[in-house]
């Protein structure tokens, strides 16, 4: 299988007048097509910074990032826009939906940018909406639906342009356990059937247990890695839980 994401010697240093803070130190990471990778770490470990680098909205201090065969460091501003549009999908903790557009309109926003034909758009929206079980609310506005539905709308929007890599930043952070389970099941489903590659940052062991592989980072460095293999989700959850005390920090706060 082809490599979707590869980093080499990735470093990110924040400098202020008083201090230098090394957010990421020598991160080496490879994600292959069709993988569902979780990144876990305590607060301040650098996991969100890492996601921002992949999302091309922040730049590393040094090192290389290659996504879907493109060295994203070599892209200029406009090429980056186009790259984000074609290769990346995003899900955020706080949804980032436009309140003035309906669920349907929010979802097809990326297609509008691609100037797709209306009929194709309609078909894509219906397809993806059924995947995430939100056909019935397509004509509602974001303020009329629940948090779980909002996040599934956001996920549909992230998926609709068929990106090479789906980046999710704490997607279950604001959801109750039922909504979180629904969302994670949907993500697992698109990952398995459509072979969508997903990279998810989380500090929720339950969310992480849906991944095929979980990478733990601590103080900006890769700490360890767990592979689910043939284990059941429950077993994998237990394995993740076992790592957490070693990892330290306040990661188990949310359990």
């Amino acid at each position, binding site marked *: 299988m082809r490599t979707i994401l590869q980093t080499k010697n990735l470093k990110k240093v924040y400098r202020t007048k008083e201090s230098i803070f090394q957010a990421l130190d020598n991160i080496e990471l490879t994600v292959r097509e069709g993988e569902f990778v979780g990144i876990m770490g305590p607060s301040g470990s650098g996991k969100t910074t890492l996601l921002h680098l992949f999302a091309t*909205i922040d730049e590393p201090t040094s090192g290389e990032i290659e996504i879907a065969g493109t060295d994203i460091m070599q892209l200029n501003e406009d090429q980056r*826009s186009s790259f984000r549009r074609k290769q990346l999908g995003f899900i955020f903790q706080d949804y*980032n939906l436009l309140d*003035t*557009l309906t669920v349907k309109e929010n979802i097809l926003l*990326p297609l509008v940018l691609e100037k797709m034909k*209306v009929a194709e758009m309609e078909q894509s929206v219906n397809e993806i909406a059924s995947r995430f079980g939100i056909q019935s609310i397509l004509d509602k506005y974001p303020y009329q639906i629940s948090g779980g539905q909002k996040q599934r709308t956001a996920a549909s929007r992230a998926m609709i342009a068929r990106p090479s890599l789906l980046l999710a930043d704490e997607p279950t952070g604001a959801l109750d356990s039922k909504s979180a389970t629904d969302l994670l099941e949907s993500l697992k489903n698109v990952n398995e059937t459509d072979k969508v590659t997903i990279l998810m940052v989380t500090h929720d062991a339950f969310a992480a247990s849906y991944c095929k592989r979980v990478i733990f980072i601590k103080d900006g460095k890769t700490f360890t890695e767990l592979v689910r293999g043939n284990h059941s989700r429950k077993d994998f959850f237990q394995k993740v839980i076992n790592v957490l005390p070693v990892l330290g920090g306040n990661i188990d706060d949310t359990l």
Partner: protein
Amino acid sequence: MTLFDIVKKNMKGNIQNYLLYFLSLIISVVIFYTFVSLQDTTEIQERAESFEIIHSIIIQASIILVLFVGIFIWYSNSFFTKRRKKEVGLYALLGIRKKTIGRMLFYENLILGFIALLIGILLGALFSRLFAMILLKLLDSPMDVGFHISVDAIVYTSIVFALIIILTSIQAYRLIYQFKLITLFQAEKQGEQVPKPSLPLAILSIIMLLGSAWIVYEPLTDEAMANLGLFSLFTINGTYLLFRSVIVYLLKIIQNKKTYYYKGINLIGTAQILHRIKGNTLTLTIISLLSAAALTAFYMGYSEYYNIKKNAMNHSPFSYLHISKNKASDQQIKQMIQQDRQHPTLSQVDIPVIQVNGNISGLGYIPYGYSANKTPVRILSSHTYNQITKALNRKGTLHLAGNQAAMIRPNSDQTDSEYVGHKITVQGDQTLTFVRLFEDRVINWSDPDFYIMVSEERFKELAKLTKPFLYKAYRVTNQENAKVTSNQLLQLAAKQNITMSTFYLDYRKNLEAAGLDLFLLGFLGIIFVVATGSIIYFKQLMEAHLDQERYRMIRKIGASKKEITTTIAKQTLFVYLLPLVIGILHSTLIFTIIYPMGEVFTVTILVSILVYGVIYFLYYLLSVYSYNKIVNT
């Protein structure tokens, strides 16, 4: 569906935000158009006796207006664009090029601006008629003004606003380049830091503000400009520090008064104000100072208008006054005055006046442009003076003997001590000693306005050497509307080369100047009020959007809707009332510099504060309503 559709849809959805910006644009255009079109209104051109002055004043005022409107639009535009940061960031994240987003915002602003310009001009054409009628009413010649469209006004308004719109569109274009995409991912910075109250700064502020008041009552120097400069320096810095330190200090004291602070949800409102005040210091300072400026404008315009009649009476004590040329023309004038049945003659006086050159080096005052040893002095007898006071219904009689003389003060700021006891000489060797100084004129002002009274005997002696000339003075009823007779007399006088002045003409000139000033100052004042009110309103809306989450949380933990409404009402009152109160205090001080205390003073201030207060109160209600709607539903 295209990107354009999305933008359009988004505009519709955000109509509340757009509407605010749109309305402020339209109002600005209407005001400007109206203003410029006034000078192009034929009715005003015909009615005004001195149109040239009106024309130049309107042009000057419109320059101030352009600056002000420009700043106001810029301000509301930046509020408006900031509100859309999230939306714009999302577009960028979904992969629209920065240039495309920039263009989108540019055209959006441009289209919005030009639609506002069009609507503004249409409304302006309607309103300018109304404003022209208000102005004519103030000029005391009310009449119906026909509907007409001023091409000049359209051209000027279009040029000025096209420029402003293009500038703000460029600002909108630059928005996307101004912030890094990463900021979208990071949580919105919750509130601002609570400023540390500094006791020394708080004391400094109070000292500066008290100092500014002290300068008014005890001027440091004789230079008015220097005093005004010092006053401004103290006021501006003092006001800034007031918000920066004193208010923070007071709020901290409230926080420490636990019986109040822990009552109801007072702590939420107080904490809220405290958190926001750092970011609001500059705005509140500017608004306080602008309010002061606006109120001062109201005061000045109103008190001038209020004083017109008094000023005119002082300037022209008689309804008609002319220098006698010959019996025939005197008779002709007298007939003309008596024929006017609407304005019957109340009294008529003949005033013989001797004009000689005098040596006034014994006085501290020498009229501008004259030399001390050769100043024209006009002399009346005390007997004539008494006749005049009787004719004018004034009280008191004058008795003079020997060398004694009395003086009518040429300048309103002069006092007895500058004249009484001083001597002057006339006709070479006649020495006169002043014993009294009168305030009110008896004959119209005329350069160098040096009128003195001497005893009957002394007057006769002087008349032997210098032949007196004769003023004929008339007083009629309702002199302020004796237009027809006044014009007839002035025409006749011009034809026969007679020196003639009428109360009506003076009064009209004053009325026009004051009416126009009141109109312009009132107009500018109201624009200031509306603009400052809008700026506070915008700020409140911005804060409401930022605080949505916080209030939702507060409601979740059990605060009732009513309690939240109360705390919102209190917070909002704070941001409206504080600048208003400070503005009133400042402007009252400024007004005291310009006009000494008096009856006008109180009336003017009360009326101006009432107008200002009512407008602010409406804004206040609107703010509470909107804020409530955003966070409490």
